[in-house]
């Protein structure tokens, strides 16, 4: 131990091996720096960021933040170095700034690491992906998110960058399953008899009380352990580490020349033995020869605790950023303070948690730790205690604790003076390519989606809207209502630049950012309708990568939503999306499946939901029935085999509705009408049902509602009555039979029904009624065919039109048969 201090002050540089994002390491680093007071602090990180170091002292800078490196001409190729308040690197940077000591990053420059990514695009899983799957997602969701963990940028910028997102892949990085790398922490933990490396590290390093004895002792011990590991495993499969370590050694040597003894290095513990190693400058130079380069740019971007967590797909992530943050910031009694925090959160959520609960939870956690042989209660003990004492054994409130505290909602901030984010660059590039200039003056833009450029422009505007950058507002198209036309009102306000900077959190390109935002929005969406609307917007914005997530959440919400009304509302939007997708040539297979599933759920739930409704609810439900009918009609047109059955199933649901007495009249009437229009119900059957409803046994109000449903509104029911005088006769007979006292009750309903008709229809109806029922009997012959028409064609009257038709078509010499066909159609 004494030798460590000697080394620090004497011979070599002071090497502080740490675990990234380890609060214990962070505290130890601060203590060590305080004690040794080096004249320069070298930190593992991209040297391009050296100029950005002073920004860390800016008042507006709040961790967690990340250093972002991206290729200048390819913003989608990027790498992140996240730093939390409790990251040893951050602590080192802050210490250096506070003590006016230069801080330098000494890792291999990002210009090389990003170029590596270009060389091998297939190799490893990307450490960090810009999208941020919610950490509170359940396991199934998390797995699904993992499956789709390909970088969204891959969609249009080609190969995915592969540099690790952490300053290095050292101790904390979980080994990728298909990776031969060793996990140094895992080996050490197994040697110590722990099955969980995370826990071993917590016990040995993080939970050691700070300030006990020698500030450098922990580093010496860790270095010895790592040295033993490196002896056994060499580079442990981390081949690139050799190159990086060679670079770091060179940098350390350079610093030593400049500052002699006062050099402190903060790097991953894994690298310490390698930096200690005596190699020749020439050998190190040789390793670095011929490395590929790309032009890179660096900046600070805000980060979140959620994205530090492993659940969000960040390779070097930690399970519990919030917990670590707490351990780092709590001055003393971390368990007591933690329990108090948990109690506060649960109280805010209206759970009854008293101080006695807190006391008992602390006691339980400490006893558990003693029983498990741990020096201090760790996260697992406190979680067990919170579950047993404060949550009554339930995992539901516990999930809240995990989400809000263990992971945490902390959002970092970056001063506005930080260099531009790559998203801005990408947007500028797209604006140039699509010849869409940001102008403060408002102007209208007509887009024809059949043209490639226009489609791309529309996609860009829709994506920006998703990101909250309201540059273009969709406006109603003039003239054409075709689905291939869009009108936008463009106007670039200065504050939109701020919005762009903010949206930089979501990704480095417009596409990846919009995808990530859409996915996050889907997870956060409250209602089913919100998710369907989002699905529609995803299609408009051409975000196929976001669709699987949105669809999954849509399917989940649909499955759990017990309100048929919500389902019925969601269905038409979904079907509309399907059709839009067709127009734009997007693959909508998944969408079709979800829509069919949604329809099934509506079918099952609709009949029970129609019972016992009051007038307003019934009217609303009737609109739902109409909407579903339209949607099913469109869905039924789709080719998939399962969708062919939907129409049949829907018709059987309608039959159930029209036969059930508990269903309000307006819905029953509408069901009969829909079946009649589809030709599923014969004219006779419809008349029988109508007669049944209009018979004296039914309360007049019910009957009037039925009529409203059957022929009311804009459904063209007037024409039906005009042409089928038997139905008109039924209505007429019923109306004249309504008792005087009931008449005033049904009058408003009837007025609403009939006043919606066009004047012509109303007049004809009036005349028919005045003419009396005698003519009606004659107009309804006992044949089949179109309602209101004779079974056979009246040849003579049909022939009479022929000359006019010939004249119109300019086909005087066309054969007689053609004319007959036409007559059949127009007649």
């Amino acid at each position: 131990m004494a030798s460590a201090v000697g080394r620090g002050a004497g011979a070599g540089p002071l090497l502080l091996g740490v675990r990234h994002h380890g609060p214990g390491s962070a505290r130890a680093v601060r203590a060590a720096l305080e004690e040794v007071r080096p004249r320069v602090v070298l930190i593992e990180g991209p040297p391009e960021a050296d100029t950005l170091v002073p920004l860390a002292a800016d008042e507006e800078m709040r961790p967690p933040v990340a250093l972002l490196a991206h290729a200048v001409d390819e913003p989608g190729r990027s790498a992140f170095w996240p730093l939390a308040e409790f990251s040893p690197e951050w602590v080192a940077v802050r210490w250096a700034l506070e003590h006016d000591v230069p801080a330098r990053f000494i890792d291999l420059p990002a210009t090389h690491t990003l170029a590596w990514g270009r060389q091998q695009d297939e190799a490893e899983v990307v450490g960090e992906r810009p999208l941020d799957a919610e950490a509170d997602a359940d396991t199934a969701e998390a797995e699904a998110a993992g499956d789709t963990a390909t970088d969204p940028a891959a969609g249009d910028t080609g190969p995915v960058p592969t540099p690790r997102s952490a300053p290095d892949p050292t101790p904390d990085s979980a080994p990728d399953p298909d990776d031969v790398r060793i996990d140094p922490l895992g080996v050490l933990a197994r040697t110590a008899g722990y099955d969980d490396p995370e826990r071993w590290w917590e016990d040995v390093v993080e939970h050691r009380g700070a300030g006990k004895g020698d500030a450098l002792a922990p580093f010496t011990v860790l270095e010895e352990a790592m040295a033993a590991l490196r002896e056994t495993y060499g580079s442990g499969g981390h081949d690139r580490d050799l190159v990086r370590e060679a670079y770091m050694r060179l940098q350390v040597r350079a610093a030593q020349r400049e500052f002699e003894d006062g050099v402190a290095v903060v790097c991953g513990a894994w690298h310490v033995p390698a930096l200690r190693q005596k190699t020749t400058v020439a050998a190190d130079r040789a390793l670095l020869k011929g490395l590929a380069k790309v032009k890179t740019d660096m900046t600070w971007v805000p980060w979140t605790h959620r994205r530090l967590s492993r659940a969000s797909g960040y390779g070097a992530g930690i399970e519990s950023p919030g917990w670590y943050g707490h351990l780092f910031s709590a001055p003393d009694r971390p368990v007591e303070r933690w329990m108090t925090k948990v109690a506060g959160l649960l109280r805010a959520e209206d759970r009854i948690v008293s101080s006695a609960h807190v006391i008992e939870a602390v006691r339980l956690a400490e006893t558990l730790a003693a029983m498990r042989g741990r020096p201090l209660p760790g996260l697992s003990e406190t979680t067990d205690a919170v579950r047993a004492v404060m949550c009554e054994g339930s995992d539901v409130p516990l999930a809240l604790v995990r989400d809000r505290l263990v992971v945490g909602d902390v959002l970092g901030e970056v001063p506005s003076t930080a260099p531009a984010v790559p998203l801005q660059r990408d947007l500028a590039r797209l604006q140039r390519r699509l010849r869409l200039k940001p102008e403060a003056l408002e102007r209208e833009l007509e887009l024809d989606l059949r043209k490639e450029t226009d489609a791309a422009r529309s996609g860009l505007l829709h994506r920006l809207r998703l990101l909250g950058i309201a540059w273009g507002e969709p406006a109603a198209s003039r003239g054409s209502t075709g689905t291939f036309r869009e009108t936008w009102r463009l106007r670039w306000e200065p504050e939109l630049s701020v919005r762009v900077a903010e949206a930089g959190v979501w990704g480095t390109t417009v596409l990846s950012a919009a995808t990530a935002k859409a996915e996050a929005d889907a997870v956060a969406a409250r209602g089913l309708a919100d998710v369907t609307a989002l699905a529609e917007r995803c299609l408009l914005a051409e975000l196929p990568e976001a669709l699987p997530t949105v669809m999954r959440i849509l399917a989940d919400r649909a499955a759990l939503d017990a309100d048929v009304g919500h389902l019925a509302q969601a269905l038409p939007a979904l079907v509309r999306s399907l059709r839009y997708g067709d127009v734009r040539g997007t693959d909508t297979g998944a969408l079709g499946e979800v829509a069919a599933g949604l329809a099934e759920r509506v079918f099952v739930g609709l009949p029970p939901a129609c019972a016992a409704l009051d007038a307003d609810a019934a009217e609303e439900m009737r609109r739902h029935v109409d909407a579903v009918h339209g949607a099913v009609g469109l869905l039924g047109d789709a080719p998939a085999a399962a969708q062919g059955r939907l129409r049949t199933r829907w018709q059987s649901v309608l039959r159930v509705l029209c036969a059930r007495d508990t269903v309000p009249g307006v819905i029953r009437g509408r069901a009969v009408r829909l079946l009649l229009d589809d030709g599923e119900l014969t004219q006779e059957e419809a008349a029988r049902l109508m007669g049944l409803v209009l018979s004296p046994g039914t309360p007049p109000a019910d009957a009037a509602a039925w009529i409203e449903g059957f022929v009311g509104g804009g459904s063209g029911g007037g024409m039906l009555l005009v042409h089928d005088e038997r139905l008109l006769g039924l209505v007429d007979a019923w109306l004249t039979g309504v008792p005087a006292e009931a008449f005033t009750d049904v009058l408003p309903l009837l007025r609403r029904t009939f006043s919606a008709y066009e004047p012509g229809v109303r007049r004809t109806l009036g005349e028919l009624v005045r003419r009396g029922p005698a003519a009606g009997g004659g107009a309804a012959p006992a044949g089949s065919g179109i309602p209101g028409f004779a079974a056979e064609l009246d040849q003579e009257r049909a022939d009479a039109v022929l000359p006019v038709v010939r004249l119109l078509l300019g086909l005087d010499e066309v054969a007689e048969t053609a004319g007959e066909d036409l007559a059949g159609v127009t007649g």
Partner: protein
Amino acid sequence: MTVSVESTSVEAGEAESTHTLRPHAEDAFAGELAALAAQDDRPRPARWKLSPWAVATYLLGGTLPDGTVITPKYVGPRRIVEVAVTTLATDRALLLLGVPGTAKTWVSEHLAAAVSGDSTLLVQGTAGTPEEAIRYGWNYARLLAHGPSRDALVPSPVMRAMADGMTARVEELTRIPADVQDTLITILSEKTLPIPELGQEVQAVRGFNLIATANDRDRGVNDLSSALRRRFNTVVLPLPESPEAEVDIVSRRVDQIGRSLDLPAAPDGLDEIRRVVTVFRELRDGVTGDGRTKLKSPSGTLSTAEAISVVTNGLALAAHFGDGVLRPSDVAAGILGAVVRDPAADRVIWQEYLETVVRERDGWKDFYRACREVSV
């Protein structure tokens, strides 16, 4: 020498237990307890027979340094047992929650046996459990003859446990009427039991604790008042984690029950059992086995115990009215009965499940048809 003395006493205990239909845990596993006690050098809380660590080992199983094998009494997450034992060590009362068939009583009996060496201080909770069962009653003959005195008092198991520093057990706490439940509050918070008739009180001796079991998903239970709830640390015993484990439990239990009912063994029943377990698990968890589709959960508990009874019923149907082979139609009605507890809401849930999940599944056509038949 000591070893031989101990072993004879163990043998005597085991010999005695052979006469009873079901020996107490402390008798049935006396050998294991003695072996654990002999080698347990960790600190023990007052009046505990074993250290908390040894109690956990007793429940979870393991091998002692001298090679004695401790059989696992509870198969499930280690965390649960650790929290339960630690709770008892912190003198907080322990509440074991869970749906029927999750081994609540089993765990509580073994905990009491390992901690106090006596699992018999038991109050069985029912809707008719009186206050006397938890506090004390009177020997009325003595009371009338000699007036109120400690001799005329009939102590409850809880009172005895307090006096002797033992572990008391309350089974089915939520079945006990709320006013009777609340008599526990003073016992658990003040650790005393006043006897106002005598102007005396019984103060709990160190080592006293209480394990209650309760079932919070059933209808018709008396929820604990928050005052009482606060006195307990709650541990929820989960349902079997993997489908395989559950199928295993169900088929083993069905086999045992079937033999005691003299039902003929069904040759191909395993497929149907697997199906029943799958349906129960999926509806219970609200997500299909492949994790693809979310489902609504019905109001019933759909516990393993219910799956067992559905399969047993099906077996009886198949044996007496069918061809002896367990078929989808034999279990369909039972499943419907278990799932649809609330005729309106649950029926919709069940139908949705049938139409969106069962219909599309390979090899489930017969089952779908059978369910449609009984559902309509």
